[in-house]
């Protein structure tokens, strides 16, 4: 086990695991506090600190680099606050300025003094992670995990409603500062593996994927840890498959794939679920329209059976389409196939008359209550008839004094309850 840790693969895997945990945990708070841009700003703003740390201590001591980077991050945060307070700049603009100024400073320092090993921080290089880095990473991840476990309540209240938190006696300012330091540390250690630009991937992607899985911060934190670790490990594993494949970008891409999966299949408003819902709705509306047309045709012709051809001509849909629709009506026991075509069962007739009733009630309502002209109400009613509930229908009927005839002189079919009540 210890020996495996010292192999390149072992180091990279362990680092990925730890990064996934700390990135996921801090990320959940970053996203719910709407600080995603701040995370991005931090990853750029710590660069002068990183360069300074490398230049200062010989041999790139990880703790010195981390310390200098965190100081740079805090200075940037202080500047940001001062800028927003004194100039009333919106936070996104202020973030943009601070980010670019600090990053420019870092780049200038790099080209002037050319420190060794800075490449790893700029572009990310999981292979360059030393055992010293790994120990530091383990410690920082441990602190983040313990901090979130024990301080969860305090963090939750301060993030959700700082005013309320202060009334409870929570020193919100200090909580925010501690969170910011923890975030800076997470960002700096993640930079080594994935580089400046991709730090956001480790912070934000697991958290937004987790938000698709749950609507409680506690369980989102668990999910984000899981996604973070899974994405980071898969990234490392992929990069080990072929020589020359970069670790950081592959981590970011694997995490993005996880997010897409969560967005598609997640229980919370998944796209797949939404698409299915929309399809079912469209099918219901098609069926209701067909039922209605059939009912009206039967009313006009005073017959109880209808040929598919006649209906197809009336509705303007292909015969094949009508046949498919009728087949689904038969499955739902609303229609029966007969020799000349099909007929409606009692339940089908009731369903159809309901829709016609809603259509005609709505037309009447639009004319009497909303001052629509008689020739303008049909199209609106075509849409509305599918969305009027039984309760609304009763309300409409009552408001219109239980009318019998619609604006075009057609009879409004009686509602089910009233029919049975007599």
């Amino acid at each position: 086990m210890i020996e495996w840790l010292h192999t390149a693969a072992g180091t990279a895997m362990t680092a990925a695991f730890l990064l996934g945990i700390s990135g996921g945990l801090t990320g959940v708070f970053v996203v719910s506090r709407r600080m995603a841009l701040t995370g991005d700003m931090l990853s750029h703003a710590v660069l002068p600190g990183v360069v300074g740390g490398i230049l200062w201590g010989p041999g790139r001591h990880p703790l010195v680099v981390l310390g200098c980077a965190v100081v740079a991050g805090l200075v940037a945060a202080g500047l940001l606050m001062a800028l927003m307070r004194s100039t009333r700049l919106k936070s996104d603009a202020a973030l943009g300025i601070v980010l670019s100024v600090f990053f420019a400073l870092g780049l200038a320092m790099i080209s002037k003094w050319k420190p060794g090993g800075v490449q790893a921080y700029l572009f990310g290089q999981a292979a360059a992670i030393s055992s010293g880095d790994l120990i530091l990473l383990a410690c920082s991840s441990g602190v983040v995990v313990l901090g979130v476990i024990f301080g969860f309540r305090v963090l939750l209240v301060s993030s959700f409603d700082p005013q309320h938190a202060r009334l409870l006696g929570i020193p919100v300012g200090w909580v925010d500062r501690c969170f910011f330091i923890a975030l800076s540390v997470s960002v700096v250690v993640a930079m080594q593996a994935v580089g400046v630009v991709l730090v956001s991937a480790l912070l934000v992607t697991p958290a937004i994927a987790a938000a698709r899985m749950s609507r409680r911060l506690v369980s989102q934190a668990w999910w984000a840890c899981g996604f973070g670790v899974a994405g980071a490990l898969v990234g490392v594993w992929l990069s080990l498959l072929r020589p020359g494949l970069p670790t950081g970008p592959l981590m970011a891409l694997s995490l993005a794939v996880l997010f897409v999966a969560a967005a598609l299949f997640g229980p919370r408003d998944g796209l797949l679920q939404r698409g299915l819902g929309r399809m079912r709705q469209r099918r219901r509306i098609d069926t209701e329209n067909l039922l209605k047309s059939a009912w009206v045709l039967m009313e006009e012709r005073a017959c109880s059976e209808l040929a598919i051809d006649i209906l197809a001509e009336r509705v303007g849909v292909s015969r094949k389409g009508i046949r498919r629709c009728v087949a689904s009506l038969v499955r739902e026991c609303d229609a029966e196939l007969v020799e000349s075509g099909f007929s409606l069962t009692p339940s089908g007739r009731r369903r159809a008359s309901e829709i016609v009733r809603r259509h005609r009630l709505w037309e009447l309502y639009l004319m009497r209550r909303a001052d629509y002209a008689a020739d303008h109400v049909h199209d609106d009613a075509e849409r509305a008839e599918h969305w009027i509930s039984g309760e609304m229908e009763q309300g409409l009927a009552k408001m219109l004094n239980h009318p019998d005839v619609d604006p075009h002189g057609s009879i409004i079919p009686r509602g089910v309850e009233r029919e049975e009540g007599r």
Partner: protein
Amino acid sequence: MKEVPVLEAHDLCASYRRRPVLHGVDVALPKGVLVGLLGPNGAGKSSFLKAVMGELKPDSGWVKLFGEPVSRARHRVAYVPQRESVDWDFPVTVADVAMMGTYGGLAWWRRAGAQERGRAMEALDRVGMASFARQPIGELSGGQQQRVFLARALAQDSELLLMDEPFAGVDAATEESIVDVLRELRSAGRTVLVVHHDLQTARRYFDLLMILNLRVVAFGATEEVLTSGNLDAAYGGRLTLLNEVASRSVVGGKM
């Protein structure tokens, strides 16, 4: 001995972004009353609540809670925020929010136990939201959202409750049920200060009224305060001279 006022402001002046929002506010609230805080938009009603909670530092004058400075007594205050100031997308449930009311007496590293949960559920029950406990707050109606925050304040069990426009966007039935809870609080000796808009209902709901428009226009028993003269003075526009002088002193003082 005279009873110590629950809330006392003396010659309170405050400004926000170099604009005066409160000027020379003098007021003292006794224990066990429902107080309505009225005034036109931008009259400084929310700012007054902020000053009471210590969120807005006074330029001059002072606020005392239970005879003590705000910083030492604000844990005895509960607050129901304006609906717009809450992030309704934040991933918490109704029960989570009610639980937040119980965190005041709990050491920061301790986990909330059965006692805290019991208090939170009891508070939700009092506002009729117990059956929504597991729902995310973003999915509630306006009235339900307001009741959840009232439950948080009830769970907090504070002596002074501040509410910022709790009846905005709330249906009449919910409004009545909230007022019922406030009356229960009053009989338990609590003081409630409510930012309110409707003059008609203000007459029925509150024992005392405070009409604010930069300064205190009127303060006292509801019937005495609701005179046409007072309302004209409050809603007939800000007093231009006072406003201008206050503006200059704020800007000048911070140069």
